C-alpha cells in the first residue's frame, strides 16, 4: 500500500494499543476537531486500516492517524470520550467494516438494517441487490 498523499495532512501510523494515547495527545495539542473516522479494506494484506482525520482550528493544520487491525476480530479502543462526534462515526465504521470499538457506550447499528449480514464496505461483500455495471464493449 504505497499511497502518495496528495493531501498536505501529516500522516501518522500507529498501533491500535497506542490509539487512545495518541489521540489524547493530539487533542491536547489543539487538534480539537475530529473530521471523520472511517476505514479502508485491504483484503490482500488481510487488514482493515482505520483512518482518523483531525483538524486543529488553532493551527489550521490537519493530521491523519492510521491504525491497522486484522480483518477478523479487529478491535480498537473507542475514542468517544475524547471526541463526542466519534460515537456515530465509530458506529458507522463498525457496521460497515466489521471492526469492534471496545468501550463504545452504544454499540448498536446506525445506518444498516438489523438483519443485514456482512460488512458492506468490505471489498468481498456480496448482496443480491448489488450489481456491477455491465461491461460494455464497443466491438
Amino acid at each position, binding site marked *: 500500500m504505497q499511497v502518495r498523499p496528495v493531501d498536505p495532512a501529516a500522516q501518522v501510523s500507529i498501533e491500535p494499543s497506542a490509539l487512545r494515547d495518541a489521540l489524547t495527545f493530539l487533542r491536547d495539542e489543539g487538534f480539537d476537531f475530529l473530521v471523520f473516522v472511517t476505514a479502508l479494506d485491504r483484503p490482500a494484506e488481510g487488514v482493515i486500516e482505520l483512518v482518523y482525520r483531525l483538524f486543529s482550528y488553532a493551527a489550521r493544520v490537519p493530521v491523519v492517524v492510521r491504525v491497522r487491525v486484522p480483518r477478523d476480530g479487529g478491535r480498537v479502543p473507542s475514542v468517544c470520550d475524547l471526541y463526542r462526534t466519534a460515537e456515530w462515526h465509530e458506529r458507522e465504521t463498525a457496521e460497515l467494516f466489521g471492526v469492534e470499538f471496545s468501550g463504545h457506550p452504544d454499540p448498536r*447499528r446506525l445506518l*444498516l438494517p438489523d438483519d443485514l449480514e456482512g460488512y458492506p464496505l468490505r471489498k468481498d461483500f456480496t448482496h443480491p441487490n448489488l450489481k456491477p455495471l455491465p461491461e460494455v464493449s464497443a466491438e
Partner: protein
Amino acid sequence: MSEAPAPDLSTSDEFLLNVGPQHPATHGVLRVVVTMDGEVVKDLQPHIGYVHRGLEKLFENRLYEQIIPYTDRTDYLSAIANNWAYVSAVERLLGLEIPKKVEYIRVLMAELNRINSHLLWLAAYGLDMGAFTPFLYAFRDREEITVMVEEASGGRLTTNYFRIGGFTRDLPASFFPHLQKFLRRFGRAVDELDTLLVENAIFVARTRGVGVISRERAISYGMTGPCLRASDAPLDVRREMPYSIYPSLDFEIPAGRNGDTWDRSWVRIEEMRQSLRILRQAAEGFPEGEHRVRVPRNLEPPAGEVYSAVEGPRGEVGFWVVSEGGRKPYRVKMRKPSFSNFSALPEILRGLKIADLVAVMGSLDLVVPEIDR
C-alpha cells in the same frame, strides 16, 4: 437501528413519543424516540438510516465521472457544494491546474447555492414555527436563483453542473443580467424575511436561550457551518482551509454569541448578506478565459488519496477519495455536515419542551439523505 432500552414506564410518569419516521418536523425520514415527562423532553434517541442507499459502496463501482450526479443526490439542497467537494478532490488527485474563470464560476454557483439553501431552510423553519407566509416569500427569491442555476446547468436541484476540470458548458449569456437583477433586489428581500420571521417577537421568545451548545461541545461533536458559528466560533472552511479564490474576496464570517437557536437563525440570515457581497465581487472581477481544462476521456488518476472540503450551506462538505489507479476509486468517504450536526441533538435538547424539539431540530438545518448517505 435497533431499539434502545425503554424506560420503565410502569413506575414513572414518563412516556415515549415517536417523532417520525413520518412527522412534519423531521423534514425527511428520520425518527427520534423521545422520552417525555408531560411536555418536557427527558431524553431522546435519534434513529437514522431510513434512506441509507450505500452510496459509498456504489461509488467504488462507478467511474470517476459517473459519481458526480450521485453527489447531487446526497444533499439535494446543496448539490453545487457536493459537486465541488468531489470534483476538487479528483482534480487534486489528477494534479490539474484550474483556470481562473472556472474558479469564479464555481464561487458564483456555490454562493448562489448557499443563499438558495438558506432560503429553503428559512422557509421550512418558518413552517416548523407555525408561520407559513415566510415560506412563500423565501420561495419567490429562491425561484430566481433556481432559474439562474437551471439556465446554466439545466437542472434546478440536482444540477450536476461541475465536471472534473471545469464545466462542459460556459455560463449562458442570460446569466449575468439575471444575476444583476437578483443582486439589486435581494438585499431588500433578506431584510424583509429577517423582519418578518427572525426579528419577530414571538420567534425571538421561542428561540433565544433555547437549545444552547457551547463552543467546546459543538467542536467536540464535530459540528460545522452555521450551527458551529452560532456558538461564538467564526470557523469556516473558506477561512480555515482556504480554497479557490476565497482568499482574494472580502467577506465576513458571522458568528453568534450564545450558541442558541436564535443565533443559528441569525447566522444564516447574515450569511445570505455575506454571500451577496461575495457574489457582487465575483461578478465584478469575472475574468475571461477557458471554462475548462482538457482532461483525458478515460480518467485514470494515479494512486493516492486526497481529502477535499468546501464550505457547504450546512457546514464542511468533504470528500475523501482514495485511488489505487484504474478508472474507479478505491474508496470514497463522504464527510457530511448534517451527520455530525444531528448527532449533537440529544445533548442540545435534553430538558427542553416538545415545542423546542421542533425549534432546535429545524435550526440544525438537517438534510436526511445527507445523514444517511
